[in-house]
């Protein structure tokens, strides 16, 4: 792109303020970006960086408490910030398309997908009736939906997440908009699907000549997909430039930190325990052992039961991290639930320190519950919003009748210090804490009973990379100090490679490949593992330097 060329989208000194109960909060301060015709620009940042607010300001769909307080947004020379609402409605969809973040909630459940695509054409007077229908079917097919003609009449719930996102892409591009805004278009999808959907979106946008404003938290993904990258932090643009340059030679400190924190398949392991020492242990201290466990569910309207977990055998030794990777529906969470004895296996055995877990009752079961503790994915949902941090952490102690009020208070302070949180957080409520702080609280709670094994089900997936890095480091430090074992459930290969001593790859309820993650990911044997590895964005496969 030459410098003199006119921009399609020109954002200048944009400021956006949200009215909140604690007074006005400025979410964007003087943001300026440009998108040229046919170009893909990625806006990268952590949650709270203002990247989604920027996207919503462009087509003026800010939440009702948000207002643009200064600056300008020009689309091909037309000022959008002071355009009357009626005129803005004509711009939305026809000149600016939008692909939302979550395909599961982005489609109207009471309208057929075909009607929803045709509607985009109808409201802008581009086509109606049979013509709109024909065009909608073409768009569906172009977005990668097989058998588009009969799929046209189906409802959103009959489509998978990836399919729904394709429908939304078809809908956003229906009127050949000059600009497509894609706000985290694939972060809710499985990794292998992500790649396909992004490929299709790029191909279709390219064919129609639409420029793309891609909002993402994933630098590697941005590097792979965009011509230029804009890095945002706390409502400001920190750095921008051609993708290669930003990734290879970041100028700003913040960008460097982001890059360093994002794990890739080439990052050295965080846990650097000598391999020999681990091998010695393996024979001596098997903590948890799943032997050929199988779990079936009866699904309404299906004659055959769904086999969620099929003959899975996994061993976790003291002081080691065993990871299970796989996509949604692979059975990895069900396996974790059986390890926690939140579910019983239909066949096979789950034993802990040599005794069968399913036979444990009363005191023995209590003992098991103390030794094995869970940490779940969502740090927002797993803490009771009405409990103070201190009360949440002390609850396991209270449940198991350990200590009195004063000693528990003391234990809580010790635990907070252990997860690197200030002790005066004990009296705060969860909503006053950031996502990373909450996940630390959840870990502190899991450690309260001095467990031997902690089961982490996607425990770092919802966190921003910088926070994720801190939590992973914390996990490894605690493992060394307390000789903890982890059963680590994740879909993120790079994170697994960072912390796990052993990995099991699951697909359709079966373990298809196992071994040392460095070896497994460097030289995958099974087709499915190969696909998973290939789905990792290039920059993360080889590391930022490559």
């Amino acid at each position: 792109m030459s410098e003199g060329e006119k921009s399609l989208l020109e954002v200048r000194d944009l400021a956006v303020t949200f009215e909140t109960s604690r007074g006005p909060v400025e979410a964007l301060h003087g943001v300026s970006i440009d998108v040229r015709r046919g170009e893909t620009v990625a806006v990268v940042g952590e949650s709270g960086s203002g990247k989604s607010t920027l996207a919503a300001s462009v087509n003026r769909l800010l939440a009702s408490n948000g207002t643009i307080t200064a600056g300008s947004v020009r689309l091909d020379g037309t000022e959008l910030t002071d355009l009357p609402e009626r005129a803005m409605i004509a711009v939305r969809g026809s000149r600016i398309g939008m692909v939302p973040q979550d395909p599961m909630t982005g489609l109207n459940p009471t309208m057929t997908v075909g009607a929803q695509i045709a509607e985009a054409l109808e409201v802008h007077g581009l086509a109606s009736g049979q013509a709109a229908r024909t065009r909608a079917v073409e768009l569906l097919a172009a977005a990668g939906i097989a058998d588009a003609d009969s799929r046209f009449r189906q409802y959103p719930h009959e489509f998978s997440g990836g399919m729904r996102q394709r429908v939304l892409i078809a809908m956003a591009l229906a009127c050949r908009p000059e600009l497509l805004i894609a706000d985290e278009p694939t972060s809710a999808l499985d990794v292998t699907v992500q790649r396909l959907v992004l490929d299709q979106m790029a191909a279709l946008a390219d064919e129609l000549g639409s420029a793309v404003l891609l909002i993402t938290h994933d630098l590697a993904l941005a590097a792979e997909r965009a011509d230029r990258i804009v890095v945002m932090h706390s409502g400001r643009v920190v750095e921008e430039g051609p993708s290669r340059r930003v990734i290879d030679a970041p100028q700003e400190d913040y960008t460097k930190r982001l890059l360093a924190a994002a794990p890739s398949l080439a990052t050295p392991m965080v846990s650097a325990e000598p391999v020999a020492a681990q091998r010695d242990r393996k024979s001596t201290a098997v903590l948890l052992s799943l032997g050929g466990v199988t779990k079936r569910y009866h699904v309404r309207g299906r004659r055959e039961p769904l086999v969620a977990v099929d003959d899975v055998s996994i061993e976790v030794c003291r002081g080691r991290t065993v990871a299970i990777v796989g996509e949604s529906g692979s059975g990895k969470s069900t396996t974790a639930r059986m390890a926690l004895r939140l579910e019983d296996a239909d066949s096979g055995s789950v034993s802990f320190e040599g005794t069968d877990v399913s036979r444990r009752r009363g005191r023995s079961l209590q003992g098991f519950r103390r030794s094995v503790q869970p940490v779940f994915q969502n740090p927002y949902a797993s803490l009771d919003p009405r409990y103070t941090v201190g009360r949440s952490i002390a609850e396991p102690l209270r449940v198991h009748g350990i200590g009195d009020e004063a000693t528990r208070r003391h234990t809580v302070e010790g635990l907070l210090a252990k997860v690197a949180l200030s002790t005066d957080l004990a009296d705060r409520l969860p909503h006053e804490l950031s996502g990373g702080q909450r996940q630390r609280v959840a870990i502190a709670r899991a450690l309260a009973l001095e467990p031997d094994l902690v089961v982490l089900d996607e425990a770092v997936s919802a966190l921003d990379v910088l926070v994720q890095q801190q939590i992973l480091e914390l996990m490894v430090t605690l493992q060394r100090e307390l000789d903890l074992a982890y059963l680590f459930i994740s879909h993120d290969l790079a994170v697994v490679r960072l912390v796990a001593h052993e990995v099991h790859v699951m697909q359709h309820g079966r373990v298809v490949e196992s071994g040392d993650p460095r070896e497994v990911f460097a030289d995958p044997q099974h087709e499915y593992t190969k696909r998973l590895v290939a789905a990792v964005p290039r920059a993360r496969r080889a590391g930022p330097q490559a």
Partner: protein
Amino acid sequence: MTALLSLWRNTFVRRVLEAALTLVGVSVLTFAVLRVLPGDQITASYGIEAGALSPDQLASLRAYYGIDRPLVAQYFSWLGGVLTGNLGVATQSQQDVLDMTLRALPITMELAVLSIVVALLLGVPGGLLAASRAGALRDNGSQLLSLLALSVPTFLVATALSSWLANRFGYNPNGEEFATLLRDPALNLQQMALPALTLGVSIAAPVFQTTRASVLAIRDEDYIRTARAKGVPPRRLQARHVLRNALIPVVTISGLQFGFLLGGAVVIEQIFSIPGIGRQVLLGMTQKEYAVVQSTVLVIAVLFVLVNLLTDVVYRLVDPQARAQ
């Protein structure tokens, strides 16, 4: 066993079996409650003089009413009758319960339909209006009204309204003999107006609240934003995207309320002298007419089950996800 299990998983079969079980439960419960209550048909018809009856007279009266037989035998003989279309006879008036029910039921149904229409006409637009400016005067005002409608007992309003009309204007259609819709539509509708309005207003309150809450929730859904992002103008957005989704819970609550109405609004029917099914049960209770109460309650239960099934059908029409299951 597996065959039975798979049969159970068939939604339709399961619904029918559940309905049948519900009805058996209702019949046993009604039967038992009537027997547990003190007094029987003899004390009901002879009053305190029942104490003066000789043992022989008592025995022959018991045999006459059929209450000398063991309870199980009484239950099954009644149930057998019901299954063959014989709902029994009211001993005092010698009327067939089936005939009584066939006369009372259409009246109750008419009242129920009119009430639900009033409720929907008030509740749905009211809810939409309130949700259109949440927190504004119209929202707070209509919320206050609905709270009032919920908390003031209907019979109080009903009595006050009808006596005020009668005293002030001499207008008291319910004072005249009840006219069915077919015999005298003009009088019938006048007689139905007040009770339908009273019932309708009290049902409008939950309908209003449900509509308002669900419109507000739907407006924050991601798919509403998607629709706005593709340029759907406000009116079309309201009609095709918000309303259709918001009506799903409204259908559920209206169906439930309609089911209750079919059970007869006992108090309202009594106040306005409407010979509906609620009054029939009440009359049967005071006169210890076992057959009347048992059979009428069972008929009401059947209707309730049918209305629930019907609600499901309507539900499937508005919610494609329910259709798939």
